[in-house]
């Protein structure tokens, strides 16, 4: 039996704790003061307080390592976000003799640097969107940028080398914009990532975002678990994720998956990771990046493959061999995951921080999976993210899966904060979504989905009046 410290909070902390406990290990949670009553603290075998936070203690490598030492943990699972893709953290674990459940710090360093990553991929003949290496500083860099633009044409993406997760990216449409925004992008990148390196990439117009889950042991075995489509995004943040990709041509899918395996091998990848691609209208695909962590949307892959990715991560990190071969991985049916957030979609997805979940009822039944952090009485934190629960549904056919998704969304009862559910209910009824016809321009082109009426059922309204009559001991609207 081992002890695993989960260096995260939220639903992913619970996800890892569950896997650890199922394996017979002990799970150690860490928390900041605002998370004192959080669910991950309750379900862990032990919990260690880091500090008042917010966020800064979860990001404090020294404190997390100290907590691991204090609890006698053998390993650390970083989850996603916070320190998950910080190579310093993986390095610190390695130095402290703790097993870091993920790739090595060297891999994280290489793949976290967009430019190095592109060099590795180029060497392995992985198809990539035309782009530059880090632009030279000052005017020289601007001249390089303008030359690139005249060769490949606009639009062009200007990206921060140290950015990620949709941050530090801007679209440039002409020379004058390039002149204006290049220095701004540098200043911003410096402030946000403490690194002012930027580079350019040709824009692929309205691509699909297709990614491949890969998993690799330390003995050279790399297996992929098929594709996911995460095209439905809002400002580069994923909202809906499905597995597998709905691209009909299986030879393309196979080719993408093989390329992903090749990319993982080229980077000496170990443990679980995700290789992201853009696929254009002509089904040409381009390598984007490798995410060196467990993804939010890993659940859809688990549903269609039956493989517990987090469990596998832990086993591989402790030096086990992969127990399955590529040909044993079978994709069965379809899965869709939606992030039920405490946000008001009509108000620019503004988080509903500070509101309390008075009532929480979740759906159940066949093909339904919930990865939640919410409970009745939960107060939406103002200092962390607003994810309440991830709903993942699995079905035999795409249509069946969509029907199940709609049913589940309707079965939720969440009273207190506004949530993304009413918006998702519009989305599942959209004919393009039902046809599986979506790319990264989907939300832009379907802005009307946000025009839904705030739903309040007749019985909820009446019940509110009855509560008032009961409280006031008379109907103040009738006397």
């Amino acid at each position, binding site marked *: 039996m081992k002890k695993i410290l989960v260096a995260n909070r939220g639903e992913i902390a619970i996800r890892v704790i569950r896997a650890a406990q199922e394996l017979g290990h002990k799970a150690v949670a860490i928390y900041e003061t605002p998370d004192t009553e959080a669910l991950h603290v309750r379900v862990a075998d032990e919990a260690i307080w880091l500090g008042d936070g917010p966020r800064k203690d979860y990001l404090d490598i020294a404190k997390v390592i100290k907590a691991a030492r204090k609890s006698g943990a053998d390993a650390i699972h970083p989850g996603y976000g916070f320190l998950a893709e910080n190579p310093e953290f993986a390095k610190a674990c390695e130095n402290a003799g703790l097993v870091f459940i993920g790739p090595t710090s060297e891999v994280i360093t290489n793949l976290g640097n967009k430019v190095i990553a592109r060099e590795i991929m180029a060497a392995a003949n992985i198809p990539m969107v035309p782009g530059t290496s880090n632009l030279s500083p000052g005017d020289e860099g601007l001249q390089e940028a303008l030359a690139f633009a005249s060769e490949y044409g606009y639009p062009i993406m200007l990206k921060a080398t140290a950015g990620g997760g949709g941050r530090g990216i801007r679209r440039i449409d002409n020379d004058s914009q390039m002149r204006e925004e290049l220095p701004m992008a540098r200043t911003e990148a410096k402030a946000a990532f403490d690194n002012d390196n930027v580079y350019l990439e040709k824009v692929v117009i309205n691509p699909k975002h297709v990614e491949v889950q890969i998993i690799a042991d330390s003995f050279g075995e790399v297996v992929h678990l098929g594709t996911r489509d995460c095209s439905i995004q809002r400002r580069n943040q994923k909202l809906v994720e499905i597995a597998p990709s709905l691209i009909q041509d299986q030879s393309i899918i196979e080719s993408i998956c093989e390329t992903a395996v090749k990319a993982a091998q080229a980077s000496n990848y170990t443990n679980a990771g995700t290789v992201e691609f853009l696929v254009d209208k002509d089904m040409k695909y381009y390598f984007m990046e490798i995410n060196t962590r467990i993804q939010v949307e890993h659940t859809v892959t688990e549903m269609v493959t039956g493989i517990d990715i987090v469990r596998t991560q832990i086993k591989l990190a402790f030096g086990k061999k992969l127990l399955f071969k590529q040909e044993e991985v079978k994709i069965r049916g379809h899965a869709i995951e939606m992030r039920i957030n405490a946000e008001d979609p009509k108000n620019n997805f503004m988080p509903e921080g500070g509101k309390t979940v008075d009532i929480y009822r979740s759906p159940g039944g066949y093909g339904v999976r919930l990865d939640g952090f919410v409970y009745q009485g939960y107060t939406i934190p103002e200092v962390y993210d607003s994810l309440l629960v991830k709903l993942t549904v699995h079905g035999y056919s795409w249509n069946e899966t969509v029907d199940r998704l709609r049913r589940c969304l309707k079965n939720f009862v969440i009273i207190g904060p506004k949530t993304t559910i009413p918006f998702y209910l519009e989305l599942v009824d959209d004919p393009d979504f039902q046809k599986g016809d979506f790319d990264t321009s989907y939300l832009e082109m379907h802005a009307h989905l946000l025009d839904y009426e705030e739903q309040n059922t007749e019985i909820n309204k009446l019940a*509110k009046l009855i*509560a008032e009559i009961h409280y006031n001991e008379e*109907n103040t609207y009738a*006397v």
Partner: protein
Amino acid sequence: MKRIVHGMHYKEALQILRQADGYYLTNTARDLSQSDFKNRILLHTDLLAAESRENANYFSLEITGGASVHVDILRKQVDPFLKLELLREKMPNTMFQTLCRGVNLFGYRPYPQNVIRFAVREFAKYVDVWRVFDFMNHVPNMQAVFEEVQLAEKILEPSICFSTGPEHSDEFYVGKVQEILAVTGEDIILCIKNHGGLGTPKRIGELVAAIKHKYPELVIHYHGHNTDGNDIGRITAAVLNGATIVDASDHAFTGYYGPPPLLSVIHTLKDYGKEAIDLNEDAVIESSEVLRNERDHYEYFESQFKGFSPTVQIHKLPGGAMGSSFEQAVKGRFLDKMPTILHDELPKVQIELGNWWSVTPGSQILWTTAVTNVLEKDRYGNPSGDLKNLLLGKYGPFPFYRPADWIYEKVFGTGWQNLLADEGGVEDIEDMDIDKERQVLADRLGHKPTEQQLVTYLQHPNDAVNFFKFEEEFGKVYVLPPSIFLRRGGYKLGESLMFKDHDGKEHVIEIGPKQKNEKSEWSIYLNVDHQERNYTFKEEAKEGAAAAGPQLSKKEIEDLAKAGDMRATYSCNVCEIVAKEDEEVAVGDKLAVVEAMKMQTPVVSQVAGTVVEIQAKVGDALKVGDKILKIITEVE
């Protein structure tokens, strides 16, 4: 003979009425609700009785109009149009009847012509029989409604309001009938509106006979109240002398001030050889069997005083105002003064002001004046705005005589003659810009209103907006029975409340515990359709009233007014703020208009100066001493 039903052409219906051998009954459920239950009988209850009332084959069901349109939105939280729609679904044949206050429509003061016509057009889509009256019996005040009802081809029922006294002769009333017929033509029903239940059976019999003598073909509908317990006598006399339709209601709900029981009327007249045409007695009994179980839930709204009031012949309060008068007396703590008010002051005021008809809005003027006269011990010293308007003839000419000069002098001061000459006479009310009002309402609601919503809004703007917002928040609450909607003292722990919603879906709400937490918040737990719900309420600071300090005395409020600090002198609602900030005002300028007990009164400046701050806004409910606005007097 063919049955008179909804949808029949009004000329055909009138032809059947003229040839009737026997009489017809109108079930005045609305007037019963208004007179004996402060207008609170819910649509839910009327829907329960709908089937048997439909089967009873009444001439009509009086189910809307009077104050009910206002109370529908104000206290019952039901849309007055939806109410008629839902009743029509269950009652396809019965004609619906309304009571319309002429130029005052379903409100308490005159509306512009275009608003009246718009409202009548919208309601005429649901209402078959239009009883129309004016408290001064001033026919021009009813003309717009007459015309619109006739344009809509509905049955028009102009009323002569009835009262007693030397001026109230047959000759006078026959003359009024002539005046009405000259305007409407002969295809009408004439209503004798005996809203106080005044006079003896003999007197009513004579009056009906006198009208029938002059107009043998005229169909007469007698309407009375049972305040003195003798309306069946008057009804009997009316029918025996030629009235074709009479009013009564379901015995399970009859009280003291409204209509008498239908069955008693039927039995009495049967013995005189008069049959209630088409009437199904079993269905009349069945309605009361259905309704009987509901009456307990309305107990709170029944009169504080039980028993008939034969002294109505002295004070003449209309049946519809009896309950609310006693309620005001209890709330205003002047119950001990009621004998003086009712039996001495009110009759005196009545004679002094012209012995016209004590019915809305005139009855409120008489009542308020009498109460103020007694409580302030200064007769006519605190005139309401509506009394002033009455004296200036704004509601119409005095039918018999003008009040004495001393009353004018007391109310208006020595310059009253000039004032009367300058401002006297019926007020011409300018048409409203209805499109503009539609936009104002749309802005207040945040969406485009329906035409029906606009009609409701034009009559009672603030109450209508409050109702529409209530409905958005709480839904269609007519589905709740009185046992739920009117419950007092809270529900019992574990009690199950069952009802169907507007869409017909069945629901169960179980009452859970009520708990207070350390933050003084109350949690109410309900189990709604098997799902637990929690509702949190913040306890209102009880010390608020104490912190506000002792209530200002009348003298203090008057002194503050003389310093430019205008306060509410009594509990009232703000109807209008006339003054604007930074505006200069003179002594006597109208600053605002407030309303209490259905009476509007202007707030008049006591000082010359500049308005510096407006503290109240339209729609505010003010308590005694609450701030309205502040004027800084000019420093010389």
